[in-house]
């Protein structure tokens, strides 16, 4: 028995003595007995409170010890293996980005002089003859109807359905980030996201300008971007700078033909002299068959783009 319990027991016993005595007591003695019982009750009240708090401390101590065990529980399935799974998935994802970066289309800058008369027939012979032959014009007014008709007719090739879905899923996944950048500039999120997929392989660790890392200003052309702020840059700040740098900010017309025109201009109008629909827009659809720039200024009529076209993605987004 604890000291508190012993003291309490003695006090209760004292009360019993007083209660037994009370019936035979005089009124004066009864008053004294009642006062004594009240005093005893006060003392018991103190003891009860102290005892309860001591018990509470004991319970708390024991609870803390069990809590430590509960906190040590490993709830992740497979623990290290799950980490390894996630690591492998990330590695594969990175690898996929690298593969797609290799497939990125170089700028489609046509040779300074159009295909010479002597070489033109050879080019023409080598160039694919598709149902959709683009105009040689580079003027939006002249191309607007072509963009509209190509876009309406564009049908994704079945064999690329999985890859198109990959791009669309990633665009949807990162939509809020593209919207955050586009809202201040009046640019639709789809336009920004598709450029990010084509030029940056959805990598949020690099500049949208050219894929250089965000930890410093750009080194490759355009170099020294962003000109304001200090590295490391957020992807959003850098993307905003790149879109302004390219003159996309503040534009009012974001119709489908205008977006297609801006994307094609961004990559280059160099496919038009060869009569090839730009794979930058139409790859993975029945608009495009073969022909692509394999290096800056070097067009190969037999090479085939392995990158999903911007128009195809836009149409798949619905």
């Amino acid at each position, binding site marked *: 028995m604890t000291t508190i319990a012993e003291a309490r027991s003695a006090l209760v016993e004292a009360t019993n003595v007083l209660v037994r005595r009370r019936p035979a007591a005089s009124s004066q003695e009864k008053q004294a007995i009642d006062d004594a019982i009240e005093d005893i009750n006060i003392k018991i009240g103190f003891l009860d409170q102290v005892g309860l708090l001591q018990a509470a401390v004991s319970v708390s101590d024991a609870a803390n010890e069990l809590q430590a065990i509960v906190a040590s529980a490993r709830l992740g399935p497979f623990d290290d293996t799950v980490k390894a*799974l996630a690591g492998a998935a*990330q590695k594969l994802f990175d690898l996929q980005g690298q593969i797609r970066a290799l497939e990125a289309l170089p700028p489609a800058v046509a040779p300074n002089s159009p295909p010479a008369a002597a070489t033109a027939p050879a080019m023409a012979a080598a160039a694919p003859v598709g149902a959709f032959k683009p105009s040689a014009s580079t003027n939006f007014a002249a191309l607007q109807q072509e963009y509209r008709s190509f876009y309406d007719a564009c049908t994704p090739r079945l064999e690329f359905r999985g890859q198109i879905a990959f791009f669309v899923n990633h665009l949807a996944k990162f939509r809020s980030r593209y919207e955050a950048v586009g809202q201040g500039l009046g640019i639709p999120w789809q336009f920004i996201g598709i450029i990010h997929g084509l030029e940056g392989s959805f990598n949020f660790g690099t500049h949208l300008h050219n894929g250089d890392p965000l930890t410093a200003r750009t080194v490759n052309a355009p170099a020294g971007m962003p000109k304001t702020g200090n590295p490391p840059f957020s992807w959003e700040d850098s993307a905003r700078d790149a879109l302004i740098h390219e003159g996309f900010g503040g534009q009012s017309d974001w119709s489908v033909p205008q977006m297609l025109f801006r994307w094609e201009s961004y990559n280059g109008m160099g496919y038009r002299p060869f009569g090839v629909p730009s794979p930058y827009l139409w790859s993975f659809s029945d608009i495009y068959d073969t022909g692509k720039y394999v290096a800056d200024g070097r067009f190969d009529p037999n090479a085939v783009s392995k990158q999903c076209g911007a128009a195809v993605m836009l149409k798949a987004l619905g």
Partner: protein
Amino acid sequence: MAGCHPEINLGANRPMGAAMKSWLAWFPALLLVAACSSGPPVEQLQTFSDAYRTANDAGQPLLDNLAIAEKSEGQINAANQAGRPTRSGNVPDEAADAACPRSDQRWQEVGSGTGFIRGYCISDAAYFASLGEPPATQAFRGGLAVLGKYVDVLIFLAEGRNLEELHAQLDSLSSTIGQVLAFLPGGGAAAGPAIGGALGALKPLIDAAAQQGNDQEIKRLVIAGAPHARQLIDRLRDAAPLMFNVLTASAARAAVSPAALDNPATAQSDIARIEAYRVTVSNFVVLLNGLQTALDKLVEAVQNPDQAASVASLAEESANLRIYADAVRKAIAALSQGG
């Protein structure tokens, strides 16, 4: 079971080829792990969980009443500690070593039997606050909650609820591998779905391996946690008499008041209230005993799986718990009706 813990490493930082090879290396490890699985003591865990729920169901309404009583008694003690005179005008003795000494706060008399505590003691805040619970009730409720967390963690692992997360990661991995292969030249696109299918076929083995990991963790938690859980149950049980004293303090005082001593028949309702609390506190103690027994059987099943209690005896115990739970509800209902 030492041979049942294969080191599994996917080689996350290696080139893709190496990573794929390590998948192949992983396969036999999965088979081994799956073969080693002996399963958790599901019935014992369920009985332990049921025993906890029943004890908690009995404990919570008791603690609701304790919170009210502890506050009320705390306020009375604070006034007595400040020196509020008794009916006869005597000033009670000051409790020694109290957190709130009389020098910090004294009873201010306003008139016969009226007054207030002139001063403020932070240690008494929990008794006077209209927010939160008084300290002891809070600690007891916290103790029951920790026991509940312990039970929840064990059940979570036994039911393999964490496998959903694993499935999501596998689906993501399968999809990523398929997409990577689709970009590779020469038949990669066709290989994508094939790899996805292969990963799908691996799922049951991976699940088995993951559940094996869960089972090992359950055993570790039971063996490491049981002494602490047992101690916590003991302490809660030890606290029961102290809870009873505070719960019945008001009725006990009334039962020995001058009016009751002059006419003992008037004390009957107070005595009945005290006895009703004796029943509810006793129920709580009995259910804590049941929880202790269920924990012992769980530990026994983990340590000696072959000699674990039979499913029939556990079913009997679960049936008893349901009867107890019903008795607890009736006793609490009787108390709330003034029984």
